[in-house]
């Protein structure tokens, strides 16, 4: 008790209570989460404003706001908090601070809102520092080429659309095509990478389910969840992604790697549109404000890989966009496609046909490509891409299988088995060495004699047997990250033996 009193006394003595100079205004219009204020001639853009007067009891009726529209005689502000407490005639003061949030290691394992306030009932988060939410992205000199892979644990992605640390890879598709599942799998597969999941406009139940899944898989310890659910004001949904990347920049500055998922930016654009229309900003195409491109470009540019002089950390961004009826040529999707370094395109048709992840390999792309793959994966992926590309060309003829020449038939059969092997259940990431092993087996024809419907069983048993009986082979692949002659020899021996035994068991 004495210690606490002493600490309080020290804090009081250390405090310098000078005359406070503030700019003041009066609310002339308030409603729907925005307020028009007269006065505030010295308000800065994105400056925090205090609504309401202070009372001596300390239980101030203060609500905070953000100055967005700076006009000659008035300021348009969005209210961050309970907008029902803001009324006409209320006094508003500037704080001299631009919008900033607390950052630090204390946020790991926590669910917070867009201002860093905890939502999980586990008490206040201890902040290490305060970072501004709006910050210029790293310059060209500070950056380094993306060359280190970020393993998602999803075979189709790691082999065909590889993602590197510091890359921005868009996940785009209609509703219920598995976009969030891919992002979640990527998070679950990370061990030393800090993960941040930003939920924008999502249902509360979905966010709770996601947090439970992260906790179940032990991934919550290295994850921060920033939640601005569908019931949050548009201002909080607008700020959520910036809060997420600000939290990530703290870790990046320490040289760590960060993975951030924005789920989803379509809702983010909607929230920004709502705010801009209420602030009477001029509207453009599809009623979005004119700077909706800048809204996302300045956010995604903050994902980068820094060189050693600047700490060597990185932020990898996985923004998610929801399309309507598969229309990737709509306004917001085309904007974000042009910003990111590639996209993973998910199709409803593939999803309902049982191909999950429902990735259209033909039009999905990673602009970083092989630079973000290990040598081992590059060796199997090259062959895999070719086989799949040939299969896609021949897929239309698959129904005439009995009338085709043997080479074409073989190609089609190989493609079917490849497609089966690339399917993967959710929340089941596969380590790199196992991916390399099974993909090597299928691209070298070891599944050609196996029935298509047994391909998944083959894969499961193949990997199980490898783990049990040839653990050192998997370890070699994991350590060397390459397929040298010895490893290939061992893989060939193992695969031959296993395929014979599997063929025997399955008749």
């Amino acid at each position, binding site marked *: 008790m004495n210690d606490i009193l002493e600490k309080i006394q020290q804090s*009081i003595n250390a405090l310098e*209570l000078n005359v*406070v100079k503030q700019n*003041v205004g009066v609310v002339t219009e308030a409603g729907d989460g925005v307020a028009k204020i007269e*006065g505030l*001639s010295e308000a800065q853009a994105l400056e925090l404003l205090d609504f309401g007067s*202070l009372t001596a009891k*300390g239980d101030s009726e203060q609500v905070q706001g953000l100055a967005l529209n700076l006009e*000659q*005689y008035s300021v348009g502000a969005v209210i961050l908090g309970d907008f029902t407490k803001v009324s006409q005639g209320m006094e508003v003061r500037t704080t001299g601070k631009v919008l900033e949030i607390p950052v630090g290691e204390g946020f790991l394992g926590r669910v917070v809102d867009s201002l860093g306030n905890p939502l999980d009932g586990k008490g206040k988060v201890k902040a290490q520092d305060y970072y501004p939410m709006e910050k210029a992205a790293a310059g060209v000199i500070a950056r380094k080429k993306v060359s280190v892979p970020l393993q998602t644990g999803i075979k189709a992605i790691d082999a065909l659309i590889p993602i590197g640390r510091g890359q921005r890879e868009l996940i785009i598709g209609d509703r219920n095509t598995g976009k969030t599942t891919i992002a979640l799998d990527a998070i679950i597969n990370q061990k030393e990478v800090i993960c941040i999941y930003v939920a924008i406009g999502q249902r509360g139940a979905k966010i709770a389910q996601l947090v439970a899944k992260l906790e179940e898989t032990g991934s919550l310890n290295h994850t921060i969840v920033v939640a601005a659910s569908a019931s949050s004001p548009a201002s909080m949904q607008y700020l959520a992604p910036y809060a997420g990347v600000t939290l990530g920049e703290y870790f990046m500055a320490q040289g760590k790697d960060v993975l951030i998922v924005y789920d989803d930016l379509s809702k983010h654009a909607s929230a920004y549109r709502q705010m801009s229309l209420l602030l009477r900003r001029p509207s453009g195409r599809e009623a979005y404000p004119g700077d909706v491109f800048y809204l996302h470009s300045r956010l995604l540019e903050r994902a980068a890989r820094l060189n050693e002089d600047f700490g060597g950390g990185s932020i990898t961004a996985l923004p998610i966009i929801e399309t309507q009826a598969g229309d990737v040529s709509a306004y917001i999707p085309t904007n974000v496609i042009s910003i990111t370094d590639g996209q993973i395109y998910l199709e409803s048709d593939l999803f309902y046909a049982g191909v999950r992840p429902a990735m259209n390999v033909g039009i999905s792309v990673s602009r970083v490509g092989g630079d973000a793959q290990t040598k081992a994966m590059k060796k199997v992926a090259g062959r895999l891409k070719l086989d799949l590309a040939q299969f896609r060309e021949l897929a239309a003829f698959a129904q005439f299988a009995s009338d085709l020449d043997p080479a074409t038939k073989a190609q089609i059969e190989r493609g079917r088995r490849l497609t089966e092997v690339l399917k993967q259940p959710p929340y089941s990431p596969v380590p790199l060495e196992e991916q390399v092993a099974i993909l090597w087996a299928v691209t070298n024809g070891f599944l050609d004699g196996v029935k298509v419907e047994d391909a998944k069983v083959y894969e499961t048993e193949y990997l199980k047997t490898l783990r049990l009986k040839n653990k050192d082979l998997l370890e070699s692949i994991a350590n060397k990250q390459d397929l040298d002659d010895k490893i290939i020899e061992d893989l060939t021996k193992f695969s031959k033996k296993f395929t014979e035994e599997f063929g025997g068991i399955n008749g």
Partner: protein
Amino acid sequence: MKKTKRILKIVDSLVQQCFDSYGQLIDDRAERTVQSLAKLPGVYGIILLSEFSKRLKFEIAKTTLLLESVLPLPEQAVLQITQNFAKTRKVNQTDTLINPSLLGGLRVRIGDHIYDDSLVSKINELRKELEDE
């Protein structure tokens, strides 16, 4: 009818004409302007009058010093504060206001600037610091 930029420009120039070169309000000119605007037909007149009144109040407040205190201030103190502020800006009028909610100290307002040396603001600042600890 919208408050177009043209209308707002007209109002601004009307407001500027109601002040002399020392920033003092010319009362009869302001009164005449109000009477002329009131004679304008329909919505046009209402918008112009409303904007004129708003802008005029804003301009007057820019040169009006408001001293808030818990107890009445002695005249000498009021004069000294006015002279100090007049060194860096125009002060045409000084008003005083008794505000017990300050608990102590002084709060000075000129235009939309506030210089707060009241006890209540110091208590709240202290509270914020201790909360952060």
